[in-house]
């Protein structure tokens, strides 16, 4: 059964269409991440689900109930905000209990809920403090606690980790994942950080200009991006792209550029490769090897090293092939100097080919 269901929702502010007839079904207990660049409408969508923005058209169902025009408090949701949005004049306890008090819950029940949430989030020692006395990580824990005490079916996260430094971010990321495993609630999580998306999500919805570009599990999104936008947006550094043409069909198809001719024998196309068609080949940095002695000669081309970025566990080598820069992920240890001539080999089994016009994956 769907936990949250969005049917044909659109939203416009005057002439600007922020959400375009959008559909999304979120399964019970699922962790969905809405991912996209700023201005893509992901936060807007989340606010619509929360009831903080009125949709222009369409319907929103939560647990099978049409909540399109319900007040936020009646939707059975909890929400965590980027800036934590803790009430500065109340103690942590006051922050946690505010919503419950508004529901008219009995004092004892409130205390029980707070105790449980505080235990889960390990914020018991902070209960009497005010938000101003807490660190960023502590504040965000309290903010999560505020959603937690509501004992709701659906958690909404609006870029909750963006205000934290890198270390805290990864710590809390793990904690949120653990929380999800423990609670098994439905969670909808908005972020522009793909690492968060890839690590946390059961499924990722990549959005652009108010439209969901692809909705899939993280691995599919990473390995089989539905279109050029998703391919370029996911992955760091970005996928390498080559403009070229298809030559031949089926297992004997080739990818051709002015200087390169690569066999597509290992490539599993979604559709059919039409000969003569202008296409874009996308290869991730880790699907390229440098100076591999076992390399298939047909998939190997000459390149020149431009810059090397050692990253500890591995390193990133920027090389140039016919003037086009591309990044290659290599194991740490081998050093390259600028100007070194190298041979690079593509692994096309995990590459993607996009129609140059439609920008969709073939």
């Amino acid at each position, binding site marked *: 059964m769907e936990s949250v269901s969005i049917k044909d929702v659109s939203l416009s502010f005057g002439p600007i269409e922020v959400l375009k007839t959008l559909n999304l079904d979120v399964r019970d207990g699922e962790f969905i991440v809405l991912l996209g660049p700023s201005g893509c409408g992901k936060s807007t969508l989340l606010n619509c689900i929360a009831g903080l923005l009125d949709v222009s058209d369409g319907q929103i169902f939560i647990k099978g109930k049409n909540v399109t025009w319900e*007040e936020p408090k009646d939707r059975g949701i909890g929400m965590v905000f980027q800036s*934590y*949005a803790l009430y*500065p004049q109340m103690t942590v306890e006051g922050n946690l209990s505010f919503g419950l008090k508004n*529901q008219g819950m009995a004092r004892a029940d409130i205390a029980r809920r707070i105790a449980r949430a505080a235990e889960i989030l390990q914020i018991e020692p902070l209960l009497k403090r005010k938000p101003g006395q807490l660190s960023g990580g502590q504040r965000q824990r309290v903010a999560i606690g505020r959603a937690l005490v509501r004992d709701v079916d659906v958690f909404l996260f609006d870029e909750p980790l963006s205000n934290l430094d890198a270390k805290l971010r990864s710590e809390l990321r793990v904690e949120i994942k653990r929380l999800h495993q423990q609670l098994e609630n439905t969670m909808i999580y908005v972020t522009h950080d793909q690492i968060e998306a890839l690590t946390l999500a059961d499924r990722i919805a990549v959005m652009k200009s108010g439209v969901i570009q692809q909705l899939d599990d993280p691995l599919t999104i990473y390995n089989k991006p539905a279109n050029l936008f998703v391919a370029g947006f996911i992955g760091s550094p970005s996928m390498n792209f080559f403009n070229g043409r298809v030559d031949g069909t089926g297992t004997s198809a080739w990818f051709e550029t002015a200087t390169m001719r690569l066999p597509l024998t290992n490539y599993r196309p979604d559709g059919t490769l039409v000969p003569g068609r202008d296409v874009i080949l996308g290869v991730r940095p880790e699907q390229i090897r440098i100076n591999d002695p076992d390399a298939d000669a047909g998939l190997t081309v000459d390149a020149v090293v431009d810059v090397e970025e050692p990253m500890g566990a591995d390193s990133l080598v920027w090389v140039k092939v016919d003037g086009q820069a591309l990044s290659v992920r290599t194991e740490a240890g081998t050093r390259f100097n600028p100007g070194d001539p190298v041979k690079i080999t593509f692994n096309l089994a995990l590459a993607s080919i996009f129609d140059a016009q439609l920008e969709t994956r073939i």
Partner: protein
Amino acid sequence: MADGTLSPAPGAAAEPLREPRGPKPRKRFSRRNIFIYGTLIFVSAYYLLPLYVMVATSLKGMPEIRIGNIFAPPLEITFQPWVKAWSEACTGLNCDGLSRGFWNSVRITVPSVLISIVVASINGYALANWRFKGADIFFTILIVGAFIPYQVMIYPIVIVLREIGLYGSVWGLVIVHTIFGMPILTLLFRNYFTSIPEELFRAARVDGAGFWGIYFKIMLPMALPIFVVAIILQVTGIWNDFLFGVIYTKPDTYPMTVQLNNIVNSVQGVKEYNVNMAATILTGLVPLVIYFVSGKLFVRGIAEGAVKG
């Protein structure tokens, strides 16, 4: 305070050959400081001059005023003018000075300040967080209203108040002050509430708080600085009001400013400058005290409220 800015560094200039080390030398009488303090002291003198004239004159007797100039300090200090201004000066047959007006002013100012601020803060809150269709149009009208001269509105408002039966009562005057305080105050509160992170408001809505719940429990406790600014602006504005006080009240409820005008303009024989000055200071005392006491809060409130917009 600028710690160390003015601390002397003896010898620093006398040993030019020494390599720089230790605290950076600063000259007490640098050209920059002379310019800054010189200008400020000059400007302060300009600002203080009238206050000095008022105080000095109010402490002189009439003969001394006739011979001396107004800037001369009083030779023989007398508090008689103050006593007279407070409790003896006459307007027509009433010779009880400003004392009566003082309490009237209190009776007018307190409810006017309270009601105008309550109304304006709710307006500002609704405009910042609960925008509804047309709200911006009303707000624009309100802002334009801030530029309409009061004189234009006096007559129609007399008619409006007459029609709702509040003309001549203190409540009528309270309404008038609320109306004319509304544009600037609403602007102030709206700017302030807009500057509060929207997410806070959203969090409260998810927590199930409604319009009033959010206002009282979340916004109000956070808005203290701007309330201080609003209170100071309104207390001084309403306390100093003359026009509405004289038009919309009766003699037995005249505020202090009207009494002041009456005393200053009731020349019985010679103009008693000392009494007039004392009366002037007495009338301005309440807002002055408020400013001097809460000046810091006022500046902070302005910094937090009016700056963002």
